[in-house]
């Protein structure tokens, strides 16, 4: 049971006047920005308005909604010791400065997802995606992250899967486990596909990225042997080498080595599969750990740079607020605005995957319960901000170029002429010369059909950076952006393959003991090969699919991610009810209902739609019927292509159906618990760890309030941390 010992914070008392005025001003500012973003048509608007609408909304949501959730709904209690305090072993459990933990948590949740989804969703214009990113994060995504973080913290940092098993039941637990594993496979395949599409036939990008392997190996060796634990120094060397690698890519492109690094998509698939396997089998100090440090530095650096770039360049958005493709006929992904925008943009608005991180290392490191607000809610707002910037970067592109880059190759044809005509058919204009010039500007062979989001984002970023920081470096900026995305996608692939391998070993170990042993090499190799084979298969089908891999696989990835969000929000709802807080249950139940409706509608359409561009099985039937007649339907070029489409569509359709079934199982088994709790008088026992008094004194938010400073000073604390003397009773309720 939750205690009654709530701690009213001093904020909000006293100087009510000026603070009220400030918040009225913020609200007016946000409203004006939203007005410009939503109402102006037939005129290019400045990207600054989008940023303003986002930041204003985040500020209001953080100040009011997240505080309401923390105080009223969760009843965070700063007199209660967190697992970091109770179980402190200075290794995995240790009280960590809130600002540091914020950085940690943000680096773990933010990856390529918030950069890719908005770029694809830009086919419907900037407005639908932007509204969902901002509204979705405020009411669903950030709420999920914060609530799961809180509940995991109250259970000593238990994982999502374990909490579902304990609090919902075995059936729900197994469904959650299957969900997590299959999501992992699809996620890795889609992310790897983004990398393949960004590097295919690009010697510059391929060489630069290939160099990250020796750089990581060198860093690993340096930290292991030469200077144990010197992470910052090693990372700085690594970043310098990385920048050099990007420059060197340009030299290689001009040299006789260029051919050796001009790889076809299928070759790249093999490279990635072999790399993924090795990275999963090798010890982490060699590749994974150094890569992680590199990605963290690059991620934070580039995001800051992009924010500054957008502010300085203040670019205009060339893609309109909405396009005709809201009806579902767009080439980038098929399906109407509802539900597919909400599926395509997962990370940045509502990302189920975050619940795995919010129930991972973060809850074991929080100093004070009230900090879940800053870390859970705050870090997700920050990721949402990254998604808004990705939307801006995509929308500064000329629409003609955007569609030439993001439509499937089969649709655009083999030449610049055919691509130009295909784009004209969509109602946008770009000449073959302009396509040629755009590619030449970033020193790529072509930009046609460079799907997956990364190249589009890179072109957008290079335009923003060039106009903010000076011309002449456009090609460098483009390849910098490609490298930045590819680098942390590969880090996710490394870590994801390894995590998937452990899950598989753990599960198979129940059937046959030896395979579960993490030190038994054949078991490690076999399970690694199975995981790599899983995502490698989908990656291969994605690369070779005549209908376009991103077009086919990205909706599945979105559905999978939103399925995991349904698992997390069901768990959160279950726990609110079990804790006797049914009157606040709407806080997670409304986002859950929305998520379930969106995801089930999308899965239903993917399975049952009679439109072959949307429904996997009607697509299958169409190609199968033609195949029976011996006919070939474009964009397939031969009977082999036709057979491939039939197989892919069948498997993808089955997967969509599986996801729908899993959502229904998880929600239904949770609903059983809800009913049981309500019948039992509105509460049920949970696995929450009993109350123990806290001795730690630390501020809740980014800046310490006057009252918090006074408390810190009273115990002689410094740098935002203090402890009560041993003879004290513990933090007195304020």
């Amino acid at each position, binding site marked *: 049971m939750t205690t009654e010992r709530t701690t009213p914070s001093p904020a909000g008392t006293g100087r009510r006047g000026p603070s009220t005025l400030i918040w009225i001003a913020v609200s007016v500012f946000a409203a004006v920005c939203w007005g410009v973003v939503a109402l102006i048509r037939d005129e290019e608007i400045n990207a600054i308005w989008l940023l303003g609408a986002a930041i204003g909304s985040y500020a209001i949501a953080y100040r009011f909604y997240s505080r309401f959730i923390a105080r009223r709904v969760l009843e965070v209690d700063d007199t209660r010791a967190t697992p970091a305090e109770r179980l402190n072993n200075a290794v995995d459990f240790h009280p960590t400065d809130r600002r540091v933990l914020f950085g940690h948590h943000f680096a773990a949740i933010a990856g390529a997802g918030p950069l890719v989804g908005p770029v694809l969703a830009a086919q419907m214009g900037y407005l639908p995606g932007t509204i969902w990113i901002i509204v979705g994060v405020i009411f669903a995504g950030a709420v999920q992250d914060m609530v799961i973080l809180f509940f995991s913290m109250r259970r000593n940092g238990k994982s999502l899967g374990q909490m579902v098993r304990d609090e919902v039941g075995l059936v729900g637990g197994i469904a959650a486990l299957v969900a997590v594993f299959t999501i992992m496979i699809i996620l890795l395949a889609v992310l790897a596909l983004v990398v393949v599409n960004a590097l295919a036939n690009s010697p510059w990008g391929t060489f630069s990225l290939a160099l990250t392997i020796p750089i990581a190996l060198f860093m690993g060796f340096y930290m292991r042997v030469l200077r144990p634990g010197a992470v910052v120094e090693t990372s700085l060397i690594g970043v310098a080498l990385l920048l050099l690698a990007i420059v060197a890519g340009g030299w290689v492109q001009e040299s006789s080595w260029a051919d050796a690094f001009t790889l076809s998509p299928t070759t790249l698939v093999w490279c990635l599969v072999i790399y993924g396997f090795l990275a999963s089998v090798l010890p982490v100090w060699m590749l994974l750990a150094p890569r992680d440090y590199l990605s963290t530095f690059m991620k934070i650096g580039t995001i800051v740079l992009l924010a500054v770039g957008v502010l300085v360049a203040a670019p205009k958005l060339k893609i309109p607020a909405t396009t005709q493709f809201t009806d579902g006929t767009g080439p980038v992904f098929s399906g109407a605005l509802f539900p597919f925008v909400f599926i395509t943009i997962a990370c940045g608005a509502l990302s189920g995957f975050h619940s795995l991180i919010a129930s*991972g290392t973060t809850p074991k490191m929080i100093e004070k319960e009230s900090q879940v607000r800053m870390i859970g809610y705050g870090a997700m707002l920050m990721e949402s901000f990254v998604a808004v910037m990705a939307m801006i970067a995509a929308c500064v592109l000329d629409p003609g170029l955007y569609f030439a880059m993001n439509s499937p190759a089969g649709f655009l044809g083999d030449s610049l002429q055919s691509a130009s005509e295909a784009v004209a058919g969509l109602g946008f204009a770009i000449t073959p010369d302009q396509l040629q010039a755009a590619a030449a500007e970033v020193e790529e062979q072509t930009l046609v059909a460079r799907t997956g989001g990364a190249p589009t984002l890179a072109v957008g970023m290079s335009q923003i950076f060039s106009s903010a920081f000076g011309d002449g470096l456009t090609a460098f900026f483009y390849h910098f952006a490609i490298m930045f995305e590819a680098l942390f996608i590969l880090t996710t692939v490394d870590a994801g393959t390894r995590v998937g391998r452990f899950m598989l070993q753990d599960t198979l170990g129940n059937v046959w003991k030896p395979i579960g042993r993490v030190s038994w090499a054949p078991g490690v190799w076999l399970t690694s090969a199975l995981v790599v084979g899983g995502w490698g298969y989908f990656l291969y089908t994605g690369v070779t699919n005549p209908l376009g891999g991103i077009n086919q696989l990205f909706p599945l990835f979105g559905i999978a991610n939103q399925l995991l969000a349904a698992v997390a929000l069901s768990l959160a709802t279950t726990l609110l009810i079990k804790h006797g807080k049914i009157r606040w249950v709407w806080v997670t139940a409304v986002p859950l209902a929305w998520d379930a409706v969106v995801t089930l509608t999308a899965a239903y359409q993917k399975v049952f739609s009679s439109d072959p561009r949307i429904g996997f099985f009607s697509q299958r039937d169409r190609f199968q019927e033609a195949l029976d007649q011996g006919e070939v339907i474009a964009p397939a070029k031969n009977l082999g292509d036709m057979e491939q489409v039939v197989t892919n569509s069948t498997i993808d359709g089955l997967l969509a159906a599986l996801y729908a079934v899993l959502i229904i199982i998880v929600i239904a088994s949770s609903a059983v618990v809800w009913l049981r709790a309500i019948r039992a008088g509105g509460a049920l026992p949970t696995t929450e760890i009993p109350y123990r008094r806290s001795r730690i004194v630390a501020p809740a938010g980014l800046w310490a309030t006057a009252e918090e400073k006074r408390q810190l000073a009273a115990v002689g604390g410094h740098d935002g941390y203090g402890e009560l003397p041993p003879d004290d009773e513990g933090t007195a309720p304020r």
Partner: protein
Amino acid sequence: MRPLRAVLWYLRELTDESAYERYVEHVRTHHPDRPVPSRREFERQRMAAKDTNPGVRCC
């Protein structure tokens, strides 16, 4: 100098470079009977632990 020091402090904490000092202090205050590992030894143990628990990164 102060902002520079703050940045360095933040980076060291963020990357967990400070893990060793934290651990040594913890052992000295709470378990004075236990031996304190050398830096090299400690970093190896830390990496070995990451080997079996790499942690998920998001998409």
